[in-house]
């Protein structure tokens, strides 16, 4: 048996470890090196898994079968709606919101009344949940030390009260150590993440021990359980409870965002929005892992004769205890303790912030006490109020545990709290997406929902414990049958939670929508509605300065900041604000709308938006803006946004047009340059033969006694130069016609093989004269193509005469081939001439670009043959190119597409 001293030692050591982690986290945060990364954030979300999960799920599974899983499916689905969560985070950051009460109150015009109501609902609603943790810790102590009994405890003090006291002390040390009330609690978040790991490891260790140590694996556990007819039904979803199933998924989905501690961890403690991307799957994975062994534990506990008569809520401890695994019992105890302390710490910190900012501060602001201590630093007072609130909340939890705790299983108590915080849903989500939702509507909805919740769930839980009479549950209020608390208006067939959820949300949503539609928001509300709903559009920009008008004095406002934030922090923030506005000294800040907004936001972070607004209203002489004015300003603002968007898109269009024009201009210049080049090249090409013709003609003219032989030679040159001139002019004309698209084409069916043959025959003398061999390979049965026969001949003749020009006489070889290649005919003229470099392979198709070295050799052609040939081939839809390498000959290839086969 474990000794009390040893358990106490382990507990103290464990708490010491957590405290060390928290101090480390805080120190790192102060040093600006946050230890909160995506994984820590995701794990800290698992503060959702409390004693309820650790002990209660097994108990729930023994009676409700698979329905315990709904509590984890809801959060999985809700977290996947990342857009909603990111919007909440964005709003909270923009408005420096520190709690869910603050969030709802800020949306509806920073209403102190609404903040107070939300706080009251949260405290009353969550107290049972805190009682659940106390009950679980007390019960596990009872298991560990069965002889002492709950009532005896240490030094005659009730052990549950002792647990509550220790937890209160621990929470105070954890959450309100900093004098600075505005900071996030990074150390606490880190400690919570550690606790999450501990409870998962502990639970899975017990699960593995039971499944594989006591039994032979999952299949064995289930086989044993399903052998008992009473248990077989536990493992199948029960369609008869479909309504309850859906209600619990909805309830838990809402709870993951609306429980004060979940809001604290997910929204307030969020350091970086991108951490959500990890949390969105890591947290559900955590939930899945911690639930894998729940059913095996439940089945195993129910079938184990040694546990007969034990409370199923304690199977996690009693199963290893019954099998003598004491180390495991201790681990499970520490895991359960982790689950309880984590929940209590975060929940009471969140609630104490709300109580301090939204219940105590408004009272304080009205009291004369504050007025008398005109210049005192109040940041210490804030911390003191929070500490008192923590103690009071835990005390309330203890009282509830004494009053009603014994009558309920763990899960039953927790669900009462879930149903309470679900009442925040219409006002909160409505406020985020519906501008028309008003303060009056939110108040009406919350009140209606809360009253129905209290009547159908909270009071019956008291009645069940015998604390108050249960007549209203059995027979209805005043004996009216329709008002039976858990069968309101005769609605039955649900369990009490679904029944409450259905009626309370109906009343809540109905009242919220109805009252919102018939009431008008005031100016502040309308402004806040805009900032909440359109938070993504407003972004980080400062709010419209015109939404505040009045007089303020710098010393009064800085005085306020120093009182509530503490002088050091206040000066730091003032200096940062002054820097942002480009001022060296904060004392020279103008007390304008922007400064008032800054001061109010800073105060809001410390004491909540409603109290901050009330305080600021006290030191500034603010003119009331009428609702119409505010709406005008907001409308104007959105119009300006629309105009600027329009302007932006016009500017983009203009830029695009400018770019197009610039490109077109560039092309025109290029064409112009090409035309100039062309003209200068043509005139140059024309001048060369003209010069020689003129020179020879002058010689003939000047010297009539020239010998006949000489004369004949000169005239021969003149004739050939004239021919070249004519050819050149013809080709230039041809080229111009082709390029302008005015060439005449007579398209018909052409047998390419025949065209090639004819061209070869026509040029044969040329080849023979230069002693160049000409061979051919023309495939048989070539289909005919659609082309202009003469033009095609022109191309082949051009390629052949080029080839014969560049090969050397005697050893030159030219080979022509025509083959069918897929959907084209491919004509290739290969020679064994000097070949072309890669650069020349493209240059030869440019106009007036001669093959060979034009500087040293006499030009052998006009330089227009290949460009013209390419124009012709491309006109028929084919291609002309050259494949060559220096020294390896050149192969000119062109293709002509075959006509599409007739359909």
């Amino acid at each position, binding site marked *: 048996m474990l000794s009390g001293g040893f358990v106490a030692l382990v507990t103290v050591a464990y708490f010491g470890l957590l405290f060390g982690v928290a101090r480390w986290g805080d120190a790192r945060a102060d040093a600006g090196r946050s230890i909160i990364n995506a994984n820590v954030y995701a794990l800290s979300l698992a503060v959702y898994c409390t004693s309820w999960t650790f002990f209660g799920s097994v108990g729930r599974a023994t009676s409700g079968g698979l329905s315990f899983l709904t509590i984890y499916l809801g959060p*999985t689905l809700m977290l996947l709606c990342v*857009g909603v969560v990111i919007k909440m985070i964005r709003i909270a950051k923009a408005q420096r919101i520190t709690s869910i009460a603050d969030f709802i109150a800020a949306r509806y015009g920073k209403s102190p009344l609404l903040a107070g109501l939300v706080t009251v609902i949260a405290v009353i609603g969550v107290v049972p949940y805190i009682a659940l943790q106390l009950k679980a810790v007390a019960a596990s102590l009872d298991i560990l030390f069965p002889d002492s009994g709950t009532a005896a405890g240490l030094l005659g003090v009730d052990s549950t009260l002792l647990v509550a006291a220790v937890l209160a002390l621990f929470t105070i040390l954890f959450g309100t150590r900093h004098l600075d009330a505005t900071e996030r609690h990074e150390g606490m978040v880190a400690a919570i993440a550690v606790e999450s790991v501990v409870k998962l490891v502990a639970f899975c260790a017990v699960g593995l021990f039971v499944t594989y140590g006591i039994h032979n694996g999952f299949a064995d556990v289930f086989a044993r359980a*399903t052998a008992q007819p009473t248990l077989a039904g536990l493992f199948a*979803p029960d*369609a008869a409870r479909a309504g309850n199933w859906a209600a619990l998924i909805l309830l838990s989905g809402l709870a993951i965002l609306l429980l004060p501690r979940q809001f604290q961890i997910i929204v307030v403690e969020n350091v970086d929005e991108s951490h959500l991307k990890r949390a*969105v799957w890591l947290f559900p994975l955590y939930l899945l892992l911690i639930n894998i062994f729940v059913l095996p534990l439940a089945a195993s506990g129910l079938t184990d004769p040694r546990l007969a008569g034990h409370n199923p809520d304690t199977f996690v401890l009693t199963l290893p205890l019954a099998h003598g695994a004491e180390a495991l019992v201790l681990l499970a105890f520490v895991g359960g303790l982790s689950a309880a302390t984590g929940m209590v710490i975060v929940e009471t910190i969140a609630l104490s912030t709300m109580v301090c900012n939204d219940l105590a501060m408004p009272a304080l602001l009205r009291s004369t006490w504050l007025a008398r201590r005109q210049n005192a630093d109040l940041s210490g007072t804030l911390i003191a109020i929070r500490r008192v609130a923590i103690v009071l909340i835990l005390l309330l939890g203890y009282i509830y545990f004494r009053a009603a705790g014994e009558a309920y299983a763990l899960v039953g108590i927790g669900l009462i709290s879930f149903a309470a915080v679900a009442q925040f849903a219409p006002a909160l989500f409505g406020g985020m997406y519906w501008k028309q939702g008003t303060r009056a509507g939110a108040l009406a909805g919350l009140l209606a929902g809360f009253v129905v919740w209290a009547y159908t769930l909270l009071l019956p839980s008291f009645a069940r414990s015998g604390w108050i009479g249960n007549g209203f549950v059995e027979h209805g209020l005043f004996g009216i049958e329709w008002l039976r608390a858990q069968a309101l208006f005769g609605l039955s067939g649900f369990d009490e939670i679904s029944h409450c959820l259905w009626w309370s949300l109906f009343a809540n949503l109905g009242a919220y929508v109805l009252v919102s539609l018939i009431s008008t928001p005031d100016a502040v509300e309308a402004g806040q509605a805009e900032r909440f709903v359109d938070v993504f*559009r407003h972004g980080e920009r400062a709010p419209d300065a015109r939404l505040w008008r009045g007089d303020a004095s710098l010393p009064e406002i800085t005085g306020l900041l120093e009182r509530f934030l503490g002088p050091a922090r206040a000066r730091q923030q003032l200096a940062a604000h002054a820097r942002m506005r480009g001022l060296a000294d904060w004392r020279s800040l103008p007390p304008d709308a922007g400064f008032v907004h800054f001061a109010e936001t800073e105060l809001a972070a410390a004491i909540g938006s409603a109290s901050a607004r009330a305080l600021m209203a006290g030191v500034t002489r603010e003119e009331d803006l009428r609702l119409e004015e505010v709406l005008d300003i907001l409308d104007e603002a959105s119009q300006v946004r629309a105009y600027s968007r329009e302007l932006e898109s016009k500017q983009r269009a203009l830029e695009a047009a400018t770019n197009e024009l610039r490109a077109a201009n560039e092309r025109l210049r290029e064409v112009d340059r090409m035309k100039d080049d062309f003209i200068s090249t043509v005139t140059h090409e024309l001048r060369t033969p003209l010069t020689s013709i003129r020179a020879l003609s002058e010689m003939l003219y000047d010297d009539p006694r020239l010998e006949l032989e000489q004369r004949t030679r000169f005239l021969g040159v003149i004739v050939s130069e004239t021919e070249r001139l004519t050819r050149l002019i013809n080709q230039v004309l041809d080229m111009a016609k082709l390029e302008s698209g005015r060439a005449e084409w007579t398209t018909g069916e052409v047998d390419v093989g025949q065209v090639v043959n004819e061209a070869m025959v026509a040029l044969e003398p040329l080849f023979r004269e230069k002693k160049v061999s000409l061979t051919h390979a023309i495939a048989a049965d070539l289909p005919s193509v659609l082309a202009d026969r003469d033009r095609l001949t022109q191309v082949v003749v051009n390629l052949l005469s080029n080839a014969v020009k560049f090969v050397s006489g005697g050893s030159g070889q030219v080979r022509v081939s025509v083959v069918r290649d897929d959907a084209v005919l491919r004509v290739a003229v290969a020679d064994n001439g000097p070949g072309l470099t890669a650069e020349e392979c493209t240059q030869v198709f440019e106009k007036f670009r001669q093959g060979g070295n034009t500087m040293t050799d006499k030009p052998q052609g006009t330089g227009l043959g290949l460009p013209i040939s390419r124009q012709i081939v491309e006109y028929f839809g084919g291609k002309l190119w050259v494949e060559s390498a220096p020294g390896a000959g050149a192969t000119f290839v062109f293709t002509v597409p075959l006509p599409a086969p007739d359909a």
Partner: protein
Amino acid sequence: MKRSGPTRQRLTAVALAALPLLTFPLLGLPQGEWLSFPAGLVYLFGVWGGAIALAAWIAERPGR
């Protein structure tokens, strides 16, 4: 105005697809035993785990 990115929309789509799969009447479909385990249990954990895996894949893909 920022529009919600494709990742956010895809994650929401996973939630919308998982919701009917994890509630009645579809939840009533698995009956008897699968792989010698209770069918309902295997089905619930399977769909749940599948949704988590899908979400992890969508959220952790690089370049977004």
